[in-house]
């Protein structure tokens, strides 16, 4: 549904995003995660056809954002950081206007507005003036505006920012409910937000993709402590293969004296056997620890470490 390759955007001498590559399949909900100023909004603006990229290509719903922006815009619903609502308008009139701008034929407009109002829980305020609504409701009106023409792709820039906890949960539920019918990209700098709604996350920092993976993989890898680190004095090939032969060990990545040991999460406790084998092989165990990283730490790690830690499995099937 969305194919991005080599996407780069320069603002004068400053590089906003650099060489982004990713694909998003139909019906997926993908989260863009990154600190403020990482390039999330820039990427989204390019995907909506709001502004062109400096280099690289992006295809949305089969159309190139540069060559056929109008076709792209027909298939995209976009909620910018500040909802683009006219404060003096009545909710229903505003949505009707948005529907008109998005080619919804006259005969279907009323139903489209009605359905957008219902899906975003605006029914009881649809006759009110947007300027008199609370921030949470304005955000919903912005979301309804993105939904009103029933687009294939929804691009939501920080959809829950500035909302109270109850509203946040409501908006998240709403977004989750869109899975399957729409392809959704949402951006956030808050981790729980992404874990709560998205199937896959793309972590961006300083304009580069530092990781993209399914939530399941990242959490199972990181959150449940299924990676052990062993530091040894003399790492030998035979020692490593001995460790590998223990059932339950999925992979071992040696980095000098440090061994990163990935474990099958369904296996019983095997830590003592790992240490035993290492001692038998005379590798000289210096340190042994389990990685207990929450995604929050991973995120911090991914976005503070400069080098690109790419664990790309973008085509991986969602569990």
């Amino acid at each position: 549904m969305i194919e991005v390759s080599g996407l780069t955007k320069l603002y004068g001498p400053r590089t906003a995003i650099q060489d982004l590559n990713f694909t998003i399949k139909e019906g997926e909900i993908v989260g863009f995660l990154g600190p403020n100023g990482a390039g999330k909004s820039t990427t989204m603006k390019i995907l909506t056809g709001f502004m062109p990229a400096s280099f690289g290509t992006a295809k949305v719903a089969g159309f190139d954002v540069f060559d056929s922006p109008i076709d792209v815009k027909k298939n995209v619903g976009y909620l910018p950081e500040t909802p683009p609502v006219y404060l003096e308008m009545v909710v229903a009139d505003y949505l009707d206007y948005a529907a008109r701008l998005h080619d919804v034929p006259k005969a279907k407009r009323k139903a489209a507005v009605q359905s957008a109002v219902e899906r975003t829980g605006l029914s009881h305020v649809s006759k009110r003036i947007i300027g008199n609504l609370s921030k949470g409701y304005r955000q919903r009106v912005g979301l309804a505006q993105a939904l009103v023409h029933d687009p294939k792709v929804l691009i939501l820039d920080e959809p829950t920012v500035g909302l109270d906890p109850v509203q946040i949960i409501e908006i998240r539920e709403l977004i989750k409910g869109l899975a399957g019918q729409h392809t959704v990209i949402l951006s956030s700098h808050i981790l729980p937000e992404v874990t709560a709604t998205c199937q896959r996350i793309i972590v961006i920092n300083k304009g580069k993709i530092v990781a993209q993976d399914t939530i399941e993989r990242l959490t199972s890898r990181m959150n449940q402590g299924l990676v052990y680190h062993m530091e040894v004095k003399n790492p030998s090939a035979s020692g490593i293969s001995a460790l590998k032969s223990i059932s339950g060990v999925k992979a071992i990545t040696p980095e000098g004296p440090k061994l990163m040991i990935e474990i099958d999460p369904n296996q019983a406790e095997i830590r003592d056997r790992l240490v035993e084998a290492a001692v038998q092989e005379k590798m000289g165990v210096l340190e042994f620890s389990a990685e207990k990283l929450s995604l929050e730490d991973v995120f911090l790690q991914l976005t503070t470490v400069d080098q690109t830690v790419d664990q790309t499995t973008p085509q991986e099937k969602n569990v």
Partner: protein
Amino acid sequence: MSKTCNGKVWAIACRDLKTYFASPIAYIVIAGFLTLMGLMFFSNLSHFFVQQLQYKQFGMGKGVSLTEGIIRPLYGNMNVILLLLVPLITMRLFAEEKKLQTIQLLMTAPITIGQMVMGKFLAALMLVGIMLGLTLVYPLILFIYGNPDLGPIFTSYLGTLLLSGCYVGMGVMFSSMTENQIVAGVLTFAAGLLFWLINWLSQFAGAVIGDVLDYLSIIQHYNNFSQGILDSTDVIFYFSFIGISLFLTHRVLDSYRWR
């Protein structure tokens, strides 16, 4: 295809026109306009009556016609008032949308920049049209109590509408250049006045440049209209002026995407 295009231009134009009436802008501008116009009309009319009486008293014939005595000065004055008021109407068109970032709705909707510009232009022009429509009461009064020429009234309205179109065109353009409504308004007024007075320089410039400056003066082209003369060169001038300002607006908005 063209039908849906018109639909979107119309959608934008109607929404913006409604916005004028959802805020005090339209009411204040219309009230101010009609107050000043009423004052002008009353003073012109009184002056005309006094003149007529003097002519009769001294047996100097019929004196000036209604067209010369009332209609020409009235619509001439109207153009000055519009020069002041149109910038107040047009200044918010794009500047406000840029400031509040609602322009993102337009920029990410499947509409062309041309449709956007046309919609905004028509919205402001329609409001000016409503203002002009309300002044029809003055010729109506003249028709009830006198027998004015229909031709000059018609061409005065047409000329005024075209001249206002030029102000609106410049207003749309300056509004697209800034987020600040005041800046847009002041620039529009200054540019309008500049194009109004530009022929003052013509007598000091050379023959060719002088002619060019004369031609560029937007008020120079109104003279024929005020006398009831419909000259295609004037109509073409006004349409070109509007066309160029809208084209420049298009370029400005297009470049905005590239920044």
